[in-house]
């Protein structure tokens, strides 16, 4: 299957050079493709994000947009990393060629973790009376903290969903929890900063939270009522967080767009 995919999409030039293992296409979006490959040594996995040029754009504009977007994403990752927000580290990049190599994050997306936990639960989402929901609530709190940390550094993610958060397994803490609780264990690592911007206004931060809230409700309708725990732990995460929560009320009333134009 991998072979047909690679025929469909020409590889970026850097990946046509020899490596110990062939790159594999992990994800494909409108703007770019994500490959899993190796950096420097065969034992160091990395993710390579490639933004191919768009044939319908004017070549000069195309080159400029690609370069600016790769650069912006790398700068945001650098800023987050230096501030201690858990994001993938940048290994290497070539903005003109449209690729950036970043740290490979082990684990699975939060979306999958939550779904594994919810399992076969009935539609209305009420747990059985005996069920202990603490591990899932803890996960919600970690999500709130992670987003709070991100906003504290003055970065807006722009596309917060449970698919753009990874659950990186805990290395140091040997888990003695049951299989079910294991599904929602791990550190939150935020990924995909392709739409990220730098801002510290309440409005932008509130919209970021609103996007997450809406995405969460549609991806995990059965766990929607637990979203309040995300906001609860977001609130004390940095100084201006409470006013962002208040702003979120306004955003909920009117939707994501402030101007209502376009």
């Amino acid at each position, binding site marked *: 299957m991998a072979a047909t995919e690679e025929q469909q999409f020409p590889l970026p*030039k*850097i*990946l046509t*050079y*020899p*490596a*110990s293992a062939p790159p594999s296409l992990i994800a494909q979006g409108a703007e770019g493709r994500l490959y899993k*490959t*190796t*950096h*420097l*040594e*065969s034992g*160091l996995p990395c993710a390579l994000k490639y933004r191919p040029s768009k044939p319908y754009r004017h070549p000069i504009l195309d080159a400029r947009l690609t370069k600016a977007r790769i*650069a912006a994403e*790398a*700068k945001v*990752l*650098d800023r987050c*990393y*230096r*501030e*201690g927000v858990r994001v993938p*580290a*940048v*290994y*290497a*990049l*070539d*903005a*003109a*060629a449209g690729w950036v190599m970043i740290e490979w994050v082990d684990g699975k997306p939060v979306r999958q973790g939550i779904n594994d936990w919810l399992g076969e639960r009935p539609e209305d989402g009420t747990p059985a009376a005996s069920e202990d929901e603490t591990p899932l609530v803890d996960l919600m709190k970690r999500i709130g903290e992670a987003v709070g940390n991100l906003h504290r550094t003055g970065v807006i993610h722009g596309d917060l969903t449970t698919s753009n958060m990874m659950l990186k397994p805990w290395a140091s803490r040997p888990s003695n929890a049951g299989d079910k609780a294991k599904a929602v264990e791990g550190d939150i690592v935020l990924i995909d900063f392709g739409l990220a911007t730098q801002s510290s206004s309440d409005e932008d931060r509130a919209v970021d939270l609103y996007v997450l809230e809406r995405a969460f409700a549609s991806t995990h309708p059965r766990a929607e009522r637990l979203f309040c725990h995300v906001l609860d732990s977001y609130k004390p995460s940095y100084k201006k967080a409470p006013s962002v929560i208040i702003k979120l009320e306004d955003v909920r009333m009117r939707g994501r767009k402030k101007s209502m134009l376009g």
Partner: protein
Amino acid sequence: MALETLNLEHIPSTHRVYAAFFRDVTNSDFLHAQLLARNPDFDYAFIEASSVISRRHLQSAIFNALVTILDGTLLSATPHSEVVLSMSPNNNIADAYRRWGIAPGKTKDLIVVKPAAHTPEAMWAHLSESIKGTPVPLSDEEISKATDWQKMRKYYSLNSVQMLSKIESEEKKRQEMERLAIMKMALRGL
């Protein structure tokens, strides 16, 4: 022969890189003079080993330099200067040479990198003849003996990174500093 061939991922075999590590070098004046005189026999990138954190740090810089060589987008005059420049977090070539290049009279530990096709035997014969120092393996262990962390913190602006002070384990802290340095090199000029 302490000359190592670096086979990096995603680098064609036509762009193989050779590297060697010498400690307690006594003739840095002479080597520096050869570079200034543009002696074609001394077509090497000489790197001050106290400004190198680890193998991965060095390899990252070499990889970044090779990418520009493969692209044909060199910012400096030669592949060798491109390796030295790739160690730097900014595009100032003079600055990069001052910090990562060979310093006459001062350099004790020296890493030699040659990013071009060459016969390793002849290169090694030439190096061992012209560099007065002790060849050692280019390993993390040997590199760490030479690293000057105070310089590293300054060059890669790590003193302003607050999250480092929260890390208790010394080993983990060094790991994070290595990564931050690599990120600084990758983001050079953005």
